[in-house]
């Protein structure tokens, strides 16, 4: 159930996968056996208890799914080999043939069944609703219109949308609970495996006893791999019969009444009923995403630009300690990833200052880009000849008056093309803010791509909207550059 935050890798991967999905070629049994290796895909970021690295012995994998994979491979008389893949990329990667099976908390849904083959279940999960200890919610129905956290591409997300609550999407499984504890959401709906480990254990939270729904984890197998599907099903049946599966689940404290109880009364919720074609409603959502992207970028840059100018001014003209501080700021914010800064600002500092996602996004981008703008302005200020300051001072300007009326206006003109360029950069970097739950353009695209099971159309639409936002700016930057080109040589000497 892990989610990587590598949004760009995801985007590249999904589009690439989409391009070749027509010729999916996941291996079948014969190939697996001749290779002597059952390659299984999962995401280490999902963490305990699924599949994770042994902290005492890095490089060694642990988790109940590792043990199931080993047992399945043994039944097939091959070795198991783990292939690390971003969780949201597992299905396209299977289709591409990166590995033979998916074994990583893959929920059985009608939508997935249309795309790949799934095995018999190896685990029954319950959708668990977690709320703050003092809250009085008793079920999804009481949360109508309220923000409820979950992960994208999950059954929980489909349930939330049907329940008419406001779903808030996270990238990792700990963040939804942290935000719930801070009061940014009203509840979290996720598998009990996640809720038990990350949610119910927090002092501020409690989990409602009744499952909102139940479903199964299944092994995902390539669409054409009939023999492999039969072999996996057979192996799972033998593991269940021999009690080995129960043993594994018990060791990981996952064996509970759900595993032996009656099958879910209803099938796991079928995928949220969505129109599989791009509709006007989708386009509207895209435009909303573009608007959010533009709004956040504009606000962020409106802060970053003056911040950069102040930093550059301090760095060039202040006393030694001021210069040192400004230099330190620039190096720290330039030298660490924006993603990390967003996490720290939104989750890390939540005890000190509780920022809304929008504010945190604007601030995070502004603080980061302020460092870059500082360098642009520093170069531009340094490029104004010393003689200009002297001329102003000789006229009787104070130091600040000479900066304000003579140096700044000239430096700003020099900096303008680079500054415009940076705004285009910020516009695209703003896609990172989806990690703090803001649904901007790229996030909207990833959500819709999953719904439509089509990566190309939403991808192109998303690219087109970014282009529509940035191209006019790029043109503007070029026009400004042309205007600021060195002046023509002075006219010949003529008596006036």
């Amino acid at each position, binding site marked *: 159930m892990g989610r990587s935050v590598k949004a760009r890798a995801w985007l590249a991967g999904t589009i690439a996968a989409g391009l070749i999905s027509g010729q999916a070629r996941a291996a079948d049994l014969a190939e697996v056996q001749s290779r002597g290796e059952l390659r299984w895909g999962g995401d280490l970021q999902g963490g305990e208890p699924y599949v994770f690295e042994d902290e005492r012995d890095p490089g060694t994998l642990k988790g109940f799914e590792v043990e199931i994979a080993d047992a399945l491979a043994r039944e097939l008389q091959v070795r198991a080999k783990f292939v690390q893949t971003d969780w949201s990329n597992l299905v396209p990667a299977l289709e591409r043939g990166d590995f033979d099976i998916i074994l990583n908390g893959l929920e059985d849904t009608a939508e997935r069944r249309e795309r790949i083959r799934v095995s018999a279940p190896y685990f029954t999960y319950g959708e668990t609703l977690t709320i703050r200890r003092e809250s009085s919610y008793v079920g999804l129905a009481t949360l109508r219109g309220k923000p409820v956290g979950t992960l994208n591409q999950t059954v929980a997300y489909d349930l939330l949308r049907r329940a008419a609550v406001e779903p808030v999407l996270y990238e990792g499984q700990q963040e939804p609970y942290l935000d719930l504890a801070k009061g940014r959401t009203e509840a979290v709906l996720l598998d009990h495996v996640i809720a038990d480990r990350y949610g119910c254990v927090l002092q501020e939270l409690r989990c409602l006893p009744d499952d909102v729904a139940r479903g199964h984890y299944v092994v995902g197998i390539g669409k054409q791999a009939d023999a492999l599907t039969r072999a996996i099903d057979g192996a799972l049946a033998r593991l269940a019969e021999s009690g080995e599966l129960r043993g594994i689940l018990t060791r990981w404290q996952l064996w509970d009444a759900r595993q032996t109880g009656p099958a879910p009364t209803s099938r796991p919720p079928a995928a949220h009923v969505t129109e599989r074609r791009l509709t006007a409603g989708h386009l509207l959502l895209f435009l909303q995403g573009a608007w959010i992207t533009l709004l956040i970028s504009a606000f962020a840059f409106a802060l970053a630009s003056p911040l950069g100018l102040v930093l550059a001014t301090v760095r060039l003209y202040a006393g030694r300690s001021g210069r040192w501080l400004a230099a330190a700021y620039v190096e720290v914010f330039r030298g660490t990833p924006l993603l990390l800064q967003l996490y720290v600002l939104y989750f890390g500092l939540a005890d000190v200052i509780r920022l809304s996602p929008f504010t945190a996004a604007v601030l995070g981008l502004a603080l980061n880009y302020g460092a870059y703008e500082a360098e642009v302005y520093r170069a531009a200020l340094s490029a104004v*000849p010393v*003689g*200009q300051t*002297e*001329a*102003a*001072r*000789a*006229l*009787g*300007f*104070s*130091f600040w*008056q000479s900066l304000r*009326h*003579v140096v700044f*206006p*000239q430096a700003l*003109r020099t900096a303008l093309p680079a500054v415009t360029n940076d705004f285009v950069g910020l516009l695209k970097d703003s896609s990172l803010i989806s990690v703090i739950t803001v649904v901007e353009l790229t996030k909207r695209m990833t959500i819709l791509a999953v719904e439509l099971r089509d990566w190309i159309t939403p991808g192109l639409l998303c690219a087109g909207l970014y282009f529509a936002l940035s191209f006019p700016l790029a043109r503007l930057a070029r026009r400004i550059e042309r205007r600021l080109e060195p*002046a*023509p040589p*002075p*006219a*010949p*000497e*003529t*008596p*006036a």
Partner: protein
Amino acid sequence: MKESLVRLSGVGKRFGARPVLHGIDAQVTSGSVVSLVGASGSGKTTLLRCMNGLEAIDTGHIDVAGHRIEARISDAELTRLRADVGMVFQDYQLFPHLSVLDNLCLGQQVVRKRSRPEAERRACKLLERVGLAERRSARPSELSGGQRQRVALARALAQDVKLLLLDEPTSALDPRTRDEIVDILHDLVRRSEPALTLILVTHDLHLAEKLADEVWTLEAGRLVTATGTSP
């Protein structure tokens, strides 16, 4: 007897370990024109820049138009002093982002606190006087060298200074343009009311002869002749 507008007393200046001015004593009477001559590196421009505090002095002091420049002088005091002392740079240093008119108005508005219409009136009058009334909207980059020099001159004068310092005002100009500038300066000195005092650094003997009441000669940082002065 005319009062002295500038009085230099034991003025010394060094760049690092290298002394460039050695205890200079001199004075300039109000309304006179002093030409500062000497070989390259003799310290002429440094001495000129000391007189409005663009270079700090190390020893002695300079009294200028009621202000005193010493080795330790506050930035605020220098700013007040500079309001009374104009300077025209060798390379003009017009503000390239402003029109000719704005070059003349900015200082008046910021330093002299004049209203925009008042500053414009004064600027237009001066532009007419230097023959550039037609080019008021031009950018400095659109002007010839001689025109730039005239704008620089007008910009300094717009501040109603008592003392005008000029660094090589004709060095970058062809002979014809140079003569025009000399004529303008000559006219300025004759017609200014109240009297304008000029100190100019120059290699141009024609300029020195035509304008100067006194010629100071600097040699290796020492004032060797100061005709017509009584230090």
